[in-house]
């Protein structure tokens, strides 16, 4: 990467794997459980967080020297709330059905621990370009897990991907594809506990591939 120095590149690549906000830091779990029943909702959530965190980090970083430290949390909340409202209104205007599916969870991006965490831990102490890269890295790391979980939950739970039937037609009388052989959708996948288990399995695989991540007792 000629465009980015090695250090800058690490800001983006680290959160994708060995410092992933969901699987390693275990932040932002609530939304990962709540909206991953459909792949589409996962993608929209990932993009929304990318927008909010990428831009929010830059804004906080630009203001970092003038924010009084006593009220910094309030300032951060205002910045993130502003951005979230923009996302919410855009979704309502251009993807109304989807915004209904995501319902309160778009608003709850404000309380997403990843965002406040990055503001506090990174943007308050680094320049705008670095903060931007950090924001993008972390939100992509978050989004990747969301999309993986959403992919498996929608595929196994409803037999569709992005709403398109990929495993055949499950309607009795006109069975086709896998369903003709007696396959049935796994309703458990659509329930929230299964998202927790899928995230758990991802964490399990990640740690068994990279044993350095396992904590000492």
């Amino acid at each position, binding site marked *: 990467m000629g465009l980015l120095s090695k250090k800058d590149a690490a800001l983006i690549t680290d959160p994708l794997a060995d410092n992933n906000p969901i699987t390693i830091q275990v932040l932002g779990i609530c939304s990962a459980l709540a909206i991953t029943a459909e792949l589409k909702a996962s993608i929209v959530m990932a993009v929304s967080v990318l927008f909010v965190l990428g831009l929010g980090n830059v804004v906080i970083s630009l203001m970092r020297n003038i924010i009084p430290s006593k009220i910094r949390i309030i300032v951060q909340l205002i910045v993130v709330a502003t951005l979230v409202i923009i996302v919410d209104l855009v979704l309502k205007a251009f993807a109304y059905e989807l915004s209904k599916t995501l319902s309160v969870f778009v608003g709850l991006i404000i309380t997403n621990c990843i965002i406040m965490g990055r503001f506090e831990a990174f943007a308050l102490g680094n320049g705008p370009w670095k903060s931007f890269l950090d924001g993008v890295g972390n939100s992509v790391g978050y989004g990747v897990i969301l999309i993986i979980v959403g992919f498996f939950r929608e595929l196994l739970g409803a037999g569709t991907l992005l709403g398109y039937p990929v495993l055949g037609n499950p309607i009795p009388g006109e069975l086709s594809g896998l369903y003709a052989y*007696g*396959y*049935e959708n*796994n*309703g*458990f*996948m659509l*329930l929230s506990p299964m998202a927790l*288990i899928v995230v*758990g399995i991802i964490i*399990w695989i990640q740690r068994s591939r990279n044993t350095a991540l396992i904590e000492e007792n």
Partner: protein
Amino acid sequence: MSLKQNLHNLKEKYKGTKMAPAFNAIHTFLYLPNEVTHGGTHIKAADDLKRTMNIVIMALVPCLLFGMFNAGYQHYAAIDGSLRANVLANFFTFDNFWIGIIKVLPLVIVSYGVGLIVEFIFAVIKGHEVEEGYLVTGMLVPLIVPIDTPLWMLAVAVIFGVVIGKEVFGGTGMNILNPALTIRAFLFFAYPTWMSGDKVWVYDAVNRTGTADAISGETILGSYAQNQEVIYSNWDKFAGFIPGSVGETSTLLILLGAAILVFTKIGSWRIILSTFLGAAAMGIIFNQIVAADIITESSKFYGLMNTVWWEHLMIGGLAFGAVFMATDPVTGSQTNKGKWIYGFLIGFISIMIRVFNPAYPEGVFLAILLMNVFAPTIDHYVVQGNVKKRLTRTNVKTA
């Protein structure tokens, strides 16, 4: 050369390799190992893990055999209701047993086959001996599922239950939840149409739906939940000539199994007794509520609330859960006082779920899983209470 010698040679040959646990397992599964312990003092006891498991399996065999006959009996009785007039003559027939063989045996084979493959894989990955833990689970699973459960669903559920319910926590003895019930819960939430309703409990009822030969086999709990009368006598309910999961219908044979477990001190009589007491207590409370006219016939809870408390003990999976599931020494409470509390709450909550949520007429497995989670907490407070009591008794000043 005998089979034993052959297996021993195989074991020696693969010693120290990655596949060693798998060969060891086959050897120890069939025979006593050739090795003996060396040096030092050691305790000699007859009840090792393998023997304990075998006794539980023996206690389950009557339920399994009865379930095989019952599979056929419920099928033929659903087609020709007159068979129910003379149960004993029409129950132990070869035709009934044959249906048991073609429907129940595959469930047993899939349960054991898939479960043991998973155990073998994990033993090889972790590089230690195959654990016997699955022997009992593998027998419990086919007994607590409906007869028409598709085999592939059972296989998926077994993989899930063994991996997520047991292996991720560290294998036999480390699991928080009862693996057999984890498998049942997975099936219930993943494929609800195959786990409840009035079609799945009788062989072939699903296939005949919508045809002229349609048959139905509503369970007693299902009928009560819809405020319907049932055709079964109390003797039918106690002896188990009723539709239900494969091996849990016969309270009589479950009590026989309980006697074996209690006599050999494998199952805790405290848990079994307190579970029944808890269920009876909740049943009596509900009966009193109905007697006081708080709930009337128009209520959707009326049917099950009005069920006489002792009938609650015989129908559904309560007896099976109390005897074979709640007594699991790994997931249950360990202290004697804890066992009373643990069992009582299982019975109490089972009947509560049964009555208040007609969508889950079988609340037993949920109640046991819930109490599995609380068992360590109960034990903790029992132990702390004991420590406190002894401290006051000896009048020792601490700190």
